[in-house]
Each structure stands twice: as structure tokens, then as C-alpha cells.
């Protein structure tokens, strides 16, 4: 144990003497801190703005005057997706997905106005976030500090004398690994601070800790890989080339290549195409203003029986409101089938990316990080589903008002003249039925469970690489 400590302490002394190492670590810290600050500010601003818009949309809706109920169905409502607390560390899909969505009767609109669409285009890597800084650039730092750990001793012939003195190769490698792990822990401090801020904003302790844990796993894998290559090669140049090309392939090339593969092998039909396919399949529900003939007759028959009448005018309830409800339900059911189809194919594509995490730990850490932060594809879908639930809730609520508070006679005569139109209005207090909308993430336990596969892949990487490192350590040659 003492040997391990001595070797680790010696490695730290070596780093502290190296001007290059200190300079690069300093620069990295500067970069990380500024990126974290900028992202945190941007997310806070976005959160405040979207919250404000949400509150405004709600108050505008409930303060509408007396209206014909169906007008309110078309008047519609807006929902906004406010960033989650951890989005200030990993905004994930937030920048590429729309933030605003219009909810109205008979339609499922898409989320519009993504920030990426309105921003100045400065190339593929201009969306630096704290998460990406850790995923892409922290490994470089580990390589810079760790690459020479073993090969340096070998080139200086120190390794030979150490081994000759009976120090085991395993202990040497272990000592170096401990030193590197210490450095990784230091590297994770800014992340830990971000996580604490998120906790102050309502994120759970479990989530915060597991986010730090995920990055600890990821960077440990890089630490083990660095020492492994440093132990295997005879010359420092070979070590550098090996590590630099691994970094290039694992962090820049493979993730983007995975995107090409996922989109080529699993093309997804777009929303318009889905819509057209739905219209072909469900010919009867194309509008939402009318139900199918059979549904109409069935409903009418049921109502006549229930109220003991044989004319719609004599019903104590407005059949047009009930029909609107029925039509909306039929249409929504059809739209939901296609929306779910589309979401599940997006999830499948995302799963292809996640599976390719077996080739590049960067893909796994990015999946785990987004999932835990609540900014991944399943949370985007969660937003879409929450919005849809709100939409169907207020539309059907208003249709209920339509059925109960607007008489059939006033309803069908509404276009006769202005007085008739005014008689078709219902009281404004009905608009209070609109529920408040706040986008909420899955509970932290659920998020952790869905990140489990990615965490499993990362752990496998760590175990494999560390195991390989110890094994190589046992066979260390001068």
C-alpha cells in the first residue's frame, strides 16, 4: 500500500513540476467555468422567459370574455417547455427541439421555434456546454497528464531498476492509476458544484450524485485507457499517436458516424407523412367537426332512449356538444396511434445510438447524462404527451360546457344574426377549467432506471479497461 502511495505522490510531484500540465489544466478550468456560467445564465434566462410566457398564456385564456364554446376550442392555448434544473449542466435536446407549442381542437401541432433554428451558424461545435466539455475535452486533459506515466519511466530506464528492485508491475501501474484518479476527482469539482446548484433548484440528491458518478465512470475509463496504452508501447511518440487517435475516433468520429448509421438504417417517416397516412387510414375522422354516420346514429339513439324523447331539440342536453366530444375523441385516438408510432421509432433510433456505446463510451455517457438531467428524447416525448393530455383535457372540458350550457336551438341558430350569435355564448367563468401547465421530469428513480443500460455499458468499459491494465501491469516489461 505504501508503495502505491509513494508512486502516486511521485506522479503528482511530476505533474506539479510540469509547466505544460499546469498551463493546460488552468486553461481547461477557465474554459469549463466560463462555459458553465454562460450555460447557467442562458438556461436561467430561458426558464424565466418561458415561465413568464406560460403564465401569460394561462391568464389570457382564462380572462377571455363570454364566447361560443367552440370558438374557445379553436382559440386554443400555448404550452412552453421550461428547462429542468440540470439543463444548466447538460441542456441536451433543449436547443434543437421547439420550446413553444400551440394546443387547439382537432390538431396535434408540433413544438415550434427551436433556439438552434434562430441562432447564428458557426459550425458543428459551436454549441459547447459543460456536459460536452467533460465528454470531449476532459479526456484530452487526462491523456496529456497520464500518457507519459509508464512510458516515461521506461524511456528513462527507471522502470527497469524499479522492477529489478522487486517492485511489482501491478503496484507501479496501480500507483499511477491512483494518482490519475485523484486528478479525475479534482476535475469533477466544477460538475459537483453545478450539481449542488441544481439541488438548490429542486433536483434530488440521488440525481445529483448519480450524474457525478456517471462522469466519474466515463473519465475513469479514459484514465485506464491512457495508462494501458502508456504501459504497452515502448516509445512515447507511439503512446501519443495511439491515444490521440483513440480520442479522435471515440469522441468525434464514432458518435457522428453512429448518427449516419441510425438514420440510414432506420429512416423515420416525418410528421406530415404520418398525417397523410393517418388520413388515408381513418377516412372518417379527417376533420373533427363531424363524426362518422354510424357513430352519430348510435349516439342519437342512446340519448333518445335515455331522455325518452324522439327529437334532438327536446333533449335536455346539446347533442352537438356531445358529438364534438365524440369526434374529438375519435380523431385524437387516431392521431395518438401515429404520434406513438413516430415517438417509438425515434426511441428506437436513439437506442441504436445507445447500443453503439459499446464502441464509444462517449455515446453512453451522453445518453446517461441527458437521461439523468431530464433533457433526453424520452423527456422530450414526455413534454409532447403532457401537452397532449392538457390539450384533450381542455378541449373536451369545453365540449362538455358546450353540451350542458348551450341549448341546441341557440346553437344551430347562432349564424342567423348578431343577437342569435350572442345567445350562443357561454359564461366566461367556464374558461377556468384550464389546468396549469408545468413541464415536469420523471422522478429521479425513473430517470436512473432508464439510464441503467448506459451506466452498465460505462461500468463494463471501466471494469474491462482497468482489468486489462492490471493484467498488463503484472506483465510489465522494462
Amino acid at each position, binding site marked *: 500500500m505504501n508503495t502505491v502511495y509513494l508512486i502516486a505522490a511521485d506522479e503528482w510531484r511530476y505533474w506539479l513540476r510540469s509547466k505544460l500540465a499546469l498551463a*493546460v489544466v488552468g*486553461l481547461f478550468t477557465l474554459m469549463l467555468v466560463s462555459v458553465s456560467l*454562460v450555460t447557467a445564465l442562458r438556461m436561467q434566462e430561458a426558464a424565466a422567459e418561458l415561465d413568464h410566457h406560460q403564465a*401569460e*398564456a394561462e391568464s389570457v385564456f382564462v380572462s377571455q370574455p363570454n*364566447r361560443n364554446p367552440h*370558438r374557445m376550442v379553436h*382559440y386554443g392555448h*400555448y404550452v412552453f417547455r421550461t428547462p429542468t434544473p440540470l439543463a444548466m449542466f447538460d441542456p*441536451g*435536446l433543449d436547443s*434543437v*427541439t421547439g*420550446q*413553444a407549442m400551440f394546443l387547439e381542437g382537432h390538431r396535434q*401541432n*408540433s413544438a*415550434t*421555434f427551436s433556439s*438552434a*433554428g*434562430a441562432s*447564428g*451558424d*458557426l*459550425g*458543428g*461545435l*459551436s*454549441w*459547447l456546454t459543460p456536459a460536452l466539455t467533460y465528454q470531449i*475535452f476532459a479526456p484530452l486533459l487526462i491523456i496529456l497528464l497520464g500518457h507519459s506515466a509508464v512510458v516515461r519511466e521506461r524511456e528513462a530506464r527507471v522502470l527497469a531498476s524499479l522492477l529489478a528492485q522487486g517492485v511489482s508491475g501491478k503496484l507501479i501501474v496501480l500507483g499511477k492509476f491512483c494518482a490519475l484518479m485523484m486528478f479525475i476527482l479534482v476535475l469533477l469539482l466544477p460538475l459537483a458544484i453545478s450539481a449542488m446548484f441544481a439541488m438548490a433548484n429542486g433536483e434530488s440528491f440521488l440525481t445529483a450524485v448519480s450524474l457525478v458518478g456517471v462522469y466519474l465512470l466515463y473519465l475513469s475509463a479514459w484514465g485506464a485507457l491512457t495508462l494501458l496504452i502508456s504501459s504497452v508501447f515502448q516509445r*512515447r511518440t507511439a503512446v*501519443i*499517436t495511439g491515444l490521440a487517435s483513440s480520442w479522435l475516433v471515440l469522441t468525434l*468520429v464514432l*458518435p*457522428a458516424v453512429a*448518427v*449516419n448509421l441510425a*438514420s*440510414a438504417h432506420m429512416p423515420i*417517416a*416525418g*410528421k*406530415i*407523412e404520418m398525417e*397523410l397516412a393517418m*388520413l*388515408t387510414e381513418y377516412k372518417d375522422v379527417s376533420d373533427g367537426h363531424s363524426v362518422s354516420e354510424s357513430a352519430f346514429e348510435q349516439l342519437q339513439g342512446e340519448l333518445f332512449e335515455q331522455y325518452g324523447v324522439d327529437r334532438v331539440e327536446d333533449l335536455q342536453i346539446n347533442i352537438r356538444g356531445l358529438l364534438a366530444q365524440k369526434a374529438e375523441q375519435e380523431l385524437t385516438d387516431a392521431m395518438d396511434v401515429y404520434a406513438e408510432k413516430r415517438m417509438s421509432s*425515434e426511441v428506437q*433510433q*436513439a437506442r441504436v*445510438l445507445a447500443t453503439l456505446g459499446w464502441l464509444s463510451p462517449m455515446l453512453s455517457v451522453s445518453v446517461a447524462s441527458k437521461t439523468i438531467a431530464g433533457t*433526453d428524447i424520452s423527456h*422530450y416525448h414526455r413534454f409532447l404527451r403532457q401537452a397532449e393530455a392538457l390539450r384533450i383535457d381542455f378541449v373536451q372540458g369545453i365540449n362538455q360546457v358546450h353540451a350542458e350550457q348551450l341549448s341546441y336551438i341557440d346553437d344551430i341558430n347562432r*349564424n*342567423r*344574426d348578431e343577437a*342569435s350569435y350572442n345567445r350562443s355564448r357561454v359564461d366566461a367563468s367556464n374558461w377556468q377549467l384550464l389546468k396549469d401547465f408545468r413541464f415536469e421530469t420523471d422522478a429521479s428513480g425513473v430517470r436512473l432506471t432508464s439510464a441503467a443500460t448506459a451506466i452498465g455499458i460505462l461500468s463494463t468499459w471501466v471494469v474491462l479497461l482497468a482489468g486489462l491494465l492490471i493484467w498488463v501491469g503484472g506483465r510489465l516489461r522494462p
Partner: protein
Amino acid sequence: MSLLVSLKREAWFLMRDRGLLSWLLVITCLSTFSVWSGLAEVEQQRATIERLLIADKEDRIAELAKQSDWGSAAYYSFHVTYDPPSDFAFAAMGQRDTLPWKHRLRMLALEGQIYEHDAGNPELALIGRFDFAFFAAFVLPLILIFLLHSLKANERVAGRFDLLNATARNDLMLWRTRAILIALSAASATILPMLLAGAASGVGAITLFSAAALVGLYVVFWVVVCVLFAGWERSAQVVLSALVGVWILLGTILPTGGRLIVDAFVPVPTGADILMTQREAVNDAWDLPVEDTMTPFVERHPEWTGYIHTGEGFDWPWYYAFQQVGDQKTEALSLAYQQGRLERDRMAGLISLITPPALLERLLAQLAQTDLRTAIAYENRVRAFHAELRTFFYPMLFQQQAYDAGKLTDLPRFVSGGAFSRVAP
């Protein structure tokens, strides 16, 4: 003569450098892969458009067959608009993953429809494609750095430095020759697959030549940077760290900072404002006196001044008039949104002059017509098409012409910007 001799000598050396050869192989493979999957993506997008046009036509014919008045005919007929990928789009998908290139709209207020985005999987858009532009702008410079950083340092370590200098007639010439050869081979390995794919898919010679020249110049830029740093009397490790630092600075830190500056300096109206203004304008109209709609409407369309809203209830011409007035009320915001984005793009273009990787990506996207300007030109074609729909239906509505389904064969057709086969509506 001496140049030729040293070129030959160095070429002979380099041909035996397995490290260099394997890197060249990697470059060729990556470039080929990027180009191949770009071609597949372009093919997929074109097939999508073909399918959409067919389904759209069937849907419209079926819907129109059910109608018996002009107002409903306009209400129930949707039209697909699209922006087909250019032939060179395979090399740079640019903004096509973040901006809409297809819509399905009808003659209602356009502002409520044009910002709908039939986006692909955001998970893929976030990471971004491995297209030729990304490969050339970000991956290629790193490979050049790996190849060139140790140009002198390694020879120094290996003890060959003085020997090489002594045997070469001019020591500067030696390193330059070596750098030139490496650059030439790397550039050709990058460019050739792109040229072949471009030629095969019928890209114009000027576009291909410009793209090749841009990548060539870009390689020269990085080779010069590498040679400058490699001349530094430091260990290979220090030189490499410094060069990777330069790459990070130019490729990501400056662009990220630049983008933040641009977005802060050029405000654009928020989407929420555009949407809410539009909705209020259109929905309030139901409860407003008819004159409040018709007055601003005839200001824009004096030819319908004489139209008198008959009866007090629902009336299609009035309905479409308030849809248009809704657009008119949102016009200023919408224009500001478009101009703000163009201004942001212009400023980003200026900033990209100091960030070569972003500059290369932008220029390639321009050549491929996948940049913001192309997307906005498409948006404007959609606006023009929507205006055509209004021009088509307004006389029928406002002159209260008798319904004649036969006239619908003259419905305006959306004409895409690029040369691309179209299905008649």
C-alpha cells in the same frame, strides 16, 4: 532541379512511412464514408418528397371531391411545399437538420402554419451528422496535426535531425518539402471521394472545383499552422498540446463565444410573441365588428372594396379576410424574425472569418444550398405560394362565383427552387 530531387527523395522516404500511409488510408475511408452516407441521405429526402407529393395529391383530390362551395374547397385542401436537397447537399447537410424543408398548409392564416417544423429525430440533430463538411472542417485538421506536429521534434529525438539537415542542400527546404508532400497526399485523399461522388451525381463543375479549392486552401492553412508550431524548439508533446489547443480555440471556443455574441447583439422576436399575436388577431376577429376586418383587408386588396358582408352570421369571404388580416397584424414581427435571423447569419459570417473550421462549414453549406439563406428563400417561396392560393380563391369568394369543381384543375402548384421532378396536383 534541386527541388525535384528533394521531392523525389522525400516521397521515397514517406512511401515507406507506415504511420503516414495508415493515416492516409483512414482519411480516405472517412471521407468515402461521409460522402456515401450523404448520398444515401439525399436519396432518402428525395424519396420522401416523392412519396409526400403522391399522398398529398390523393388526399387533396379526395377532399375536394366532397366539397360543394369555394370556402370549403379552400378550407379542406392542403398543399405540400418542399425544398429538395441540391445535388451537392450530400457533402454538407448544413441547416437541413435544424430548419424546416417541408410544410403542409392551406389557405388559413399563414403565420400559424409556416413555423410548424416537421423535424427529424432531435437526438440525431443534436450530435450532428458525419458529413463531408464536418469531416473536412474538424476531423481532418486533427489528423494533419497528428501527422505534422512531430516533423522536426521526432527527428531531433531520434538523432537524425542533424544528419538530415547536413545532407539536405537547404534545411528549410527539406522540412517544407516534407510538409508539402504530406499536405498534398492528405488533401487528395480527402477531396477525391467527394469529387467522384459529385461527378457521379451531376454536380456542376464550378461547384465541385470551388469545394475542392476551399478544402485545399483549408489544408494549406492548417499545414502552415502546424509547420510554424513544429519549428518551435520544444518536445513533440508540447507542440502537439499547443496545436490541439489551437484547434479547440478555432473550432469550438471562438465559435461558441461568437454565437453567444451574435445572439446577444441581434435580438429576434421570440416565437411566443409571433404565435400569440397571430392567434389573438385571428380569434378576436370572430367577435369584432365586420368593418374592423374588412377595412384593413381592402387596404391590401382594394379590388374587393365593393364586397358587402351579407347577413350577420358566418360568411366565408369574411372568414378568409380575417385570416389574412391576422397575417397582416403579425407581418412586422414576422419580418423582424426573418431579418433578425439573416442579420445573425451575416454577423456569424463575419465572425467565421477568424474561425476557419466554421468558415469552411459555412462555405460548403452555401455551395450545397443548405445554409440559412436557402432556407429563408424557401420560406419566401412558401409565402409566395400561399399568396397565389389567395389570388386564386379570392375572386371566386368575393365575386360569389357559382361553384365549379372543374376550375380546381387550375389550382396553383408549388414550384420548388431546384430542378426536381414534380407530380401535378
